[in-house]
């Protein structure tokens, strides 16, 4: 059975990645998961310098999902290169670095520092809804998305994925613009913007009022967007949004994703990546699928 997937020249041993921000840099999962068994660890957003993130509460449970307003708290790229890269390199998995930034310059500063770091791929997060200045504005407009993609691509050494926001009218035009601007692949979807109110306290549950909605509740939106985009772009797509099981992953592959990422599920069940991988293998065995590629985009 062939599970490996090649994206922009990087060979991943299987199509199961982690969703940025739900796996940190993997350290918290070593008790639960053999990191060497995952296709890639996509690490939490890394900025040019440490970010504090938003005040608490940052988490709200919603029906079949959750809201987060972590706001990209991270220790910055220098710390990442010093501490996390050597840690992750102990495992036989690929390292994908999610880039956080408020301006093109900030993104480029991170990408630039990563030139000499031993990481396999970058993922440009132009879609985090939790950062006011810039972060999300890039993701919701085709021209802006293309601009930031082009610039960051130019200053990156490693192949560049661009992570798209689902909070848009026309995902296809953004996907195409980003492809034209040189992206090596797309990651979709990030969280939907949502809000929850505590009716007893008469205030939003999140200190930041709004947050990103993730989890199985949003899967139908993710499947739809991957399906729509995959029909129109030639670059590979990493599909995510609500994947809890192997069958959820297969859905994304059939919709057109070349690989998938497990996000919120990691928080609910730290062994989720392993279970999703096993579920994919079980499915392939059941139907005699010998190469994972044969599942990609089978929906007409």
């Amino acid at each position: 059975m062939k599970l490996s997937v090649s994206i922009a020249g990087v060979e991943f041993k299987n199509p199961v990645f982690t969703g940025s921000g739900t796996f940190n840099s993997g350290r918290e999962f070593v008790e639960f998961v053999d990191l060497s068994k995952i296709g890639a660890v996509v690490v939490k957003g890394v900025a040019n310098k440490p970010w504090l993130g938003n005040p608490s509460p940052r988490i709200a449970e919603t029906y079949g999902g959750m809201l987060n307003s972590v706001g990209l708290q991270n220790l910055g790229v220098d710390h990442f290169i010093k501490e996390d890269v050597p840690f992750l390199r102990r495992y036989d998995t690929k390292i994908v670095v999610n880039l956080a930034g408020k301006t093109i310059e900030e993104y480029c500063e991170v990408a630039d520092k990563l030139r000499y770091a031993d990481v396999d791929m970058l993922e440009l997060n132009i879609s985090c809804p939790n950062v006011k200045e810039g972060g999300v504005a890039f993701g919701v407009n085709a021209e802006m998305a293309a601009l930031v993609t082009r610039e960051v691509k130019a200053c990156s050494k490693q192949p560049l994925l661009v992570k798209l926001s689902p909070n848009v009218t026309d995902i296809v035009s953004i996907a195409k613009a980003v492809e034209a601007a040189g992206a090596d692949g797309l990651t979709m979807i990030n969280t939907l913007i949502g809000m929850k109110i505590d009716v007893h306290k008469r205030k939003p549950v999140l200190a930041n009022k709004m947050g990103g909605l993730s989890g199985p509740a949003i899967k139908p939106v993710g499947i739809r967007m991957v399906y729509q985009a995959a029909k129109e772009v030639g670059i590979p797509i990493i599909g995510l949004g609500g994947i809890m099981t192997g069958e959820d992953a297969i859905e994304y592959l059939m919709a057109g994703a070349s690989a998938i990422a497990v996000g919120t599920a990691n928080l609910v069940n730290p062994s989720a990546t392993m279970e999703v991988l096993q579920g994919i293998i079980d499915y392939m065995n059941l139907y005699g699928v010998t190469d994972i590629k044969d599942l990609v985009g089978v929906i007409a």
Partner: protein
Amino acid sequence: MCNHYKEKITTKILSNKTIADNVYEMQLTVPSIVKEARAGQFVNLYLKDESKLLPRPISICEVDIQTNILTLVYAVFGEGTRIISGYMAGSDIQIMGPFGNGYELTEGGTHLLVGGGVGTPPLVELAKRLSGEIIVVVGFKSETYLVEELKKYATVYVATDDGSTGFHGTVVDVLDAHNLRTGKVYACGPKPMLKALQNWVEESQLEAQLSLEERMGCGFGACVGCVVKVISDNEAGYDYKKVCVDGPVFNSKEVIFS
């Protein structure tokens, strides 16, 4: 798949019964958790209803190494705990833990344990493990619970908001009334209580460990969702630490209550 990796544990509920109005005691056999547990740590309980995905963090109230029984005491607060309170003895539940740092224990001397409402449960295992003079001050709205258990290990003062049992007032009122300004302080309770206590220990020049609560996404450090503001020497003057792994127990001096 890989048995040497840690996983969610599915275990049978031995008992799940009400011990006060809206407060329940659940007992479970979980050898791995019982073996590792420290006082002040917590476990994640998972609901069977898949529309509610996130764990419910509940403090370890007591563990029994002989029988491998873990005791949890929890209040029905919202929908999740209401559903859990309906789980019957004999049915399965998913659990993971222990998580968090737990209280730091010192040998001998005086220990002042301060609890409020469902902050009381972790003090049971704590009182059991401490040696020296143990004083417990616990406050409740009205009905009390776990007081008898605590009396096994400690001198217990009780306060209630309505004066129905013990002192009519807050735990800080009790500390003042009985002039209990001595020893190491260990506390767990609602934020207003901890805030008041933080002032009180500062005035009293005591060392205190406060166990905090925050809404959690994972309970094991992955989501960076459960943070508390702590004093830092960075530019901002503060930083965020995770309640689930850096806590739930913090040095009173470092916590910034907002």
